[in-house]
Each structure stands twice: as structure tokens, then as C-alpha cells.
């Protein structure tokens, strides 16, 4: 774990990703200090272009786009991290239990996992959200969390299977440690890079999917979030009337946050799997020769 963090500190992708994430996080937390406007209130004339009064212009019904962007970041981050946590927790727990216990437990969990994996996710989410109707960000986070854990469970199970054969796990079994303790304190800490990749990947997935569902009009249109900003802008035909700020600003915000999180994800992947790290020509040769000695 220590190695992981040290590696991350020295990785440029991780640094840029972390800076972007910190920037968005800070903007979300300090929203009331940065703008005096209420994100839901009508505070100006409709479709005003960016000006000193309204830094990023106003929407069709005269809401301040900058205020909506800042407060919307709170929703996106909350849904992203909430759903991401849920997805990772369920996936990791099921994966470790299936991989470590084996036998009937494994068969049942694996069957369930494979089943969920082959059913297309986005259409199912759309239908669920449509049946529930005007899903609030919290409901969207819950739906995402409960339907998207399968990939994590499969990867975690595969890793657990190989960890189970390691000496330190065998030793813990000999000493007579209880199963839950082995799973929580012997197996889990060694899965930390997979859990990290799974978590950040899930956060990205949740942020994108929440925005997509809301853009398609399946969310609660009164919620303040980047997805509903896009939905309202599209409904107000912002593009064809030339109100580019109403639609492009949430677009760039989503792209920026997505990029930051992806950079973090790739960085963890590289640190956990050093072969992926970029090296110069010489390093590659040294590496090619050395890799014959011991597999990572």
C-alpha cells in the first residue's frame, strides 16, 4: 500500500488527475462563497451571454449558469462517489467471498455475476429509471450501485483465487484464523490496487451515467446537476438559438472531471502494473531482459 502511494506521488498522470479532482471538489465546497446567486432562482433576463454580472451567462428561464455549475458539481460528485462506493463495496465483498470460499457459494455468486454481466446495462438502467419516473440523484445513485457491481466482482474473484494459493494465506489458515479475518485482513489488503481501479472506474461510470440519464429526461428536472443543465439546455434548443454557454459549459465540466478521474485510474493501473509505465528506450531493454527472471 505504501509502495502504491509513493508511486502515485511520483506519477505525472496521477498528479494532474488529482489537481483536477481537487479543483472541482474545492469549487463544489466553496460554491456559496464564489457566487451570490441561488442556482434554482430566476436571477436575470433569459439567455444573457456571459458578462460581469453573470460570469457564464443565464439559462432560458434566467438562472445563473455559473451558480448552477458550482452547485451542480456537488450533485455530480456526491452521486459519483456515493454510487462508486456502493458498486465497489458490493463487488469487492462478493468477489472475495466467491474466490475464497469456493464451492457452492462460488458457483451461486459467479452465476449471478455472469448473468448480470451479459445483460446490457444502459438500456436496463434507462428502463428502470423510466419506470420509477423522475428519479432523484439519490435514487439514480442507488440504481447504479445495485446494478453495476458485476465487473468488479469478477475481477476481484479472479485475483482472490490466485492469492488464496499464496503462502501467507496458507499460514494464516494453519494458525487457525477465522475465515472472515483472513478475507478482511490477509486477502483484502493485497487487492487494494484492484479495489482502487474499480472504485475510480465506478465513480467515472456513475458520473457519466447520471448525466446521461438526466440528459435523456429520466431524472428529476428540478434537481441542480450537470445532467439536468444539459437536459434543460437541450429542451430550450440552446444550440439552435445560439446560447452556446448554456450547453457547452456543463459539457466542458463533465469532460474535465472525466479526464481527471481517468488520469488517476490510469496512474493507479501503471503503478500497480509497472510494465505499463512509460520508460525510455534503455529502460525498456533492461526491463525486457530482467522480466525473464521473475514474473510480476
Amino acid at each position, binding site marked *: 500500500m505504501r509502495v502504491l502511494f509513493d508511486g502515485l506521488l511520483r506519477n505525472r498522470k496521477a498528479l494532474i488527475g488529482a489537481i483536477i479532482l481537487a479543483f472541482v471538489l474545492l469549487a463544489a465546497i466553496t460554491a456559496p462563497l464564489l457566487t451570490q446567486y441561488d442556482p434554482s432562482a430566476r436571477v436575470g433576463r433569459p439567455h444573457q451571454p456571459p458578462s460581469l454580472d453573470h460570469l457564464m451567462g443565464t439559462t432560458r428561464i434566467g438562472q445563473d449558469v455559473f451558480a448552477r455549475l458550482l452547485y451542480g458539481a456537488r450533485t455530480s460528485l456526491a452521486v459519483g462517489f456515493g454510487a462508486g462506493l456502493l458498486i465497489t463495496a458490493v463487488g469487492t465483498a462478493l468477489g472475495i467471498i466467491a474466490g475464497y470460499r469456493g464451492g457452492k457459494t462460488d458457483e451461486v455468486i459467479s452465476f449471478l455475476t455472469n448473468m448480470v454481466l451479459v445483460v446490457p446495462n444502459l438500456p436496463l438502467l434507462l428502463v428502470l429509471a423510466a419506470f420509477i419516473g423522475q428519479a432523484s440523484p439519490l435514487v439514480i445513485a442507488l440504481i447504479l450501485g445495485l446494478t453495476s457491481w458485476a465487473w468488479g466482482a469478477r475481477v476481484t474473484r479472479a485475483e482472490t483465487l490466485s492469492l488464496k494459493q499464496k503462502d501467507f494465506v496458507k499460514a494464516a489458515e494453519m494458525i487457525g484464523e477465522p475465515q472472515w479475518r483472513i478475507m478482511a485482513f490477509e486477502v483484502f489488503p493485497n487487492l487494494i490496487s484492484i479495489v482502487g481501479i474499480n472504485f475510480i472506474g465506478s465513480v467515472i461510470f456513475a458520473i457519466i451515467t447520471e448525466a446521461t440519464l438526466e440528459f435523456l429526461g429520466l431524472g428529476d428536472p428540478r434537481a441542480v446537476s450537470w445532467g439536468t443543465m444539459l437536459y434543460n439546455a437541450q429542451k430550450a434548443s440552446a*444550440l439552435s438559438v445560439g446560447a452556446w454557454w448554456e450547453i457547452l459549459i456543463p459539457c466542458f465540466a463533465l469532460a474535465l472531471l472525466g479526464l481527471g478521474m481517468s488520469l488517476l485510474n490510469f496512474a493507479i493501473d501503471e503503478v500497480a502494473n509497472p510494465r505499463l509505465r512509460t520508460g525510455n528506450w534503455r529502460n525498456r531493454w533492461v526491463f525486457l531482459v530482467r522480466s525473464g527472471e521473475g514474473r510480476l
Partner: protein
Amino acid sequence: MAFLLRRLGFYLAAFVAAATVNFFLPRLMPGDPVQIMFSSAGAELPPESLQSLKLTFGFVDGPLWQQYLTYLASIFTGDLGRSIKYFPAPVTSVLGQALVWTVGLMGIATIISFTVGSLLGVLAAWRRGSAFDVIVSVGAIFATSVPAVVTSLIVVFVFGFTLGWFPSGYAADPRLDPAFSLQYVGSVLYHGFLPMVTLCAVLTGGFAVTMRNNMINLLGEDYVVMGRAKGLSDHYVMIWYAARNALLPTVSSLAIAIGTILGGSLVTEVVFNYPGLGNILYQAILARDYPVIQGQLLIMTATMLIANFIVDVSYVLLDPRLKGAL
């Protein structure tokens, strides 16, 4: 053979499970789905015509298990009921029309992205650390992390509205009659260009990253070092030692991409108002057209399952280590 048969059994079970979810979803929602369905259509209906309408739509009375069995039987005979929005068109013909557009659009986009992405991935891995690798890696990360909604909206804004180079809606000029003429085909290509570019931008990065990472993992393998030690040329080792084996896991992501073709372009189709399956599903959801939604979900699940089965077969065929499983 036993391996493939076991997989086939699993996929059949998964399909029945998906059909079951499909059957119970509208019935688990609060209120009578049939009532909601027809009341959203507007007029108040007398009970007897409601009853006959229910029958036309294939709703069967009786205990739940009986309805369920009827439903399963009708699926396996290819009868998906009738659409509410496009009444009296059967669901199969509504979906069939849209299918052509989606398969054309997504099919070509997938093939282009797979070819270009894999090639970029191989080259980037081989020249790891070079400027080329940095550009490809960062570009791919960026392309995969931007939501498809955002890419679609920006493309339609820049090329459709601001520059006005390409149309921002429909699959062809609506004033033209569908025909196999130069004019009509040209119009289809012209209208399909922007959605195609958007989809390629969304898909290529993923293939490039997968291929690059596979390659890098394989470049450390003994047999690649061996190939170099034998004095083979760079290109020979790159293509016949590394890329050939790195392609194996990519084949499975290609098949999964093909499996998601039917649903994968939903957002792009909605933004570009393209009459494909994704857009039909979206319209059906807005109109609460349950038969179309259910039919669509089933078709998507079925394609996904078939794609997975093809992956299994291709693995057995491509990977000699699995030959024994046949």
C-alpha cells in the same frame, strides 16, 4: 464440446432470466400497467373496449404464472406484441426498420474504430515513451473519459450549427424517397457522417488502450525476447510475436462491442435525431410504450448473449491451449 455446451446452457438460462425480469418489471411498478399505459394515451375508455384493447396488445388474464408462460411462449415464437405509439404496427416491424440504420451506423463505426484503434495501440506500445505514444495514450484517455453525450453535443454544435457543414438530424433528406439512387445514397452518407465521426471518436480510444496495454504486457514475455535474440527484425517480432497474441483479448472486446451495438449508440442517435434502435427505445420510454421497450431489451440481451457465445467459440479456435476443451 462439453465446454461450449455448458456455455450454451448458461446463455439460455441468462436469456430466460432476462425475459423474466422483462416480464415482471412493469408488473412490479405501482398501479396496473395496462391502466397506466392506456390512460397516458389520453381518453377515458369504457371497460369493454379496454378489455378488447388489452387482448389486442396480447395481455392475458388469469393467474400470474399463466401470463408468464404465455409470455415466454410468445417470445420464442418471435411475437413481441404491438406498439402503442405506432399502433397497429407490430413491435418486430418497428424495431426492424430502426435496426437497419443502427447496424449500418454502428457496424461501420465499430469496424473503423477497431482497426484504427488496434493499429495505434500496437505502434504506441512498440514505441513506448516516444512522443507518438504520449499523444496516442493521452488522446485515448481523453476520448474514453469524455461522456458520449458531451462528444455528441460538441460535434453537433461545431459542425452542425456553427459551421453548418453537415445536417444535424435524420438519416437522410426527408424530402427524398428511399430508393437505390445515387442521390438518396449520397444523402444517407451525408447525414450519417457526423454521427459516424462521433461514434468513432468515442470508440477508438478504448480499443487503442486495450491493445497498447496487452502489447506491453506481452513484450515482457520470454518468447518476444527470444524472437529478438534470434535476430529477427523489429517489424517481424512486433507483428508476428507480439501483436498476434495481443489481439486475442482484443477479439473479446470487439465481440462485446458488437454485442452492444444495438444499445451503444443511444445517446448519439438521440442527439443527432437519427432513426436507429437507440432513438426508438428513447422515444418508447418517453411515450411509455411498454411493448416496444420490452422487445428492445430482449433483442439487446439476445445479441449480447450471441456475441458472448461467439467470443467463447473464437477463443477455443484461436487459442491452441484451449483446443482440448472442444
